[in-house]
């Protein structure tokens, strides 16, 4: 029993890590694809944003309380949530006219 508890103790962080669901978004021609991302509510999630443009973009969202510069031709990970069910818009601040998207937590 003790052994089991100890192994659980060491396993728990690894499990928690594995359980953080990942969602991918691509930036190309200053647009996000997909522009709408459905994620589970009340759960921490990890966004992986790949910027395929050669120029930098700044992922920004006031509702999500996040901002991160993503240099050209690179990937960034952003942890968000746990979110209450709802819509959380985000933009690419450097190209706000085209780079728009929304996270839908449900």
């Amino acid at each position, binding site marked *: 029993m003790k052994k089991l508890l100890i192994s659980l103790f060491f396993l728990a962080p690894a499990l928690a890590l594995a359980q953080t669901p990942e969602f991918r978004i691509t930036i190309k021609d200053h647009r996000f694809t997909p522009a709408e991302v459905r994620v589970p509510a009340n759960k*921490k999630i990890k966004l992986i944003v790949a910027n395929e443009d*050669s*120029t*930098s973009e*700044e992922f920004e969202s*006031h*509702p999500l*309380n*996040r901002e*991160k*510069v*993503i*240099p*050209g031709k*690179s*990937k*960034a*990970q*952003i*942890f968000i949530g*746990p979110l209450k069910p709802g819509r959380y818009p985000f933009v690419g*601040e*450097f*190209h*706000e*006219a085209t780079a728009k998207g929304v996270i839908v937590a449900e």
Partner: protein
Amino acid sequence: MLSVAILVFRETLEAALILGVVAAASRSVAQSRRALGIGVAAGAAGAVLVALFAGVIAASAQGMGQELFNATVLGLAVLMLGWHMIWMTRHGAAMAAQARQVANEVKQGARGLSAIVVIVALVVLREGSETVLFLHGMFSGGGLTPAAVAAGGVLGVGAGAAVGYALYAGLLRIPVRWFFSVTGALVLLLAAGMAGQMARYLIQADILPGMLDPLWDTSWLLSPETAIGSLLQVLIGYDARPSATQVIFYAVTLTLILLGAKLARPPRLNH
């Protein structure tokens, strides 16, 4: 061109407002103007360097290098602002009152000056590097002529600087007997706000837990996207949807600096 100007203005504004407060708060420190100039120049040079290495920074620390970098810069700025505030409590009032005792002041002033240089450089560095990255992208293919991008950049920086200067000029009009209290309070809130922002970056990097996120939501009342909202965001650390972690960082910083300033207050002179 206008879109470039607007974005550069937004990025510049934060640094300009902080500069305005620091410039006003340190006006009685000998040679503080020169310290501001050196800080801006060092920060601008640093911003270009940070932009050049943005990819390297972002990829470091398992992809959380940027958050760590921002948190570190903010943390250092908070320390420096706190120290400057405590230092001004101790020496500022005396300096304003007896501006003639130069010999001692120059020596003491040097320490205050280095804090000003570091604060200004850090603030310019952080906001500047984003501006450099943005402008670089615009130059290398944003569908605008280089001249238009350059003009937008100059216009944006100019407008940001103008607002910062207006704040500075406004603060200088405050009567002397309230001046130290007002600028002191502003520096204090500035530092607390930066500490809150620092917590936000550490939460974003999943280094700190974002407890009770959000603790409140006042975006219906005052959105951070409005002019007043973003102004208050810079000046007093207003956040429409902070987590409890951020609020704790804010409150602890506020308390520690106040306590430090109280302890550092010189005893009343008896002659």
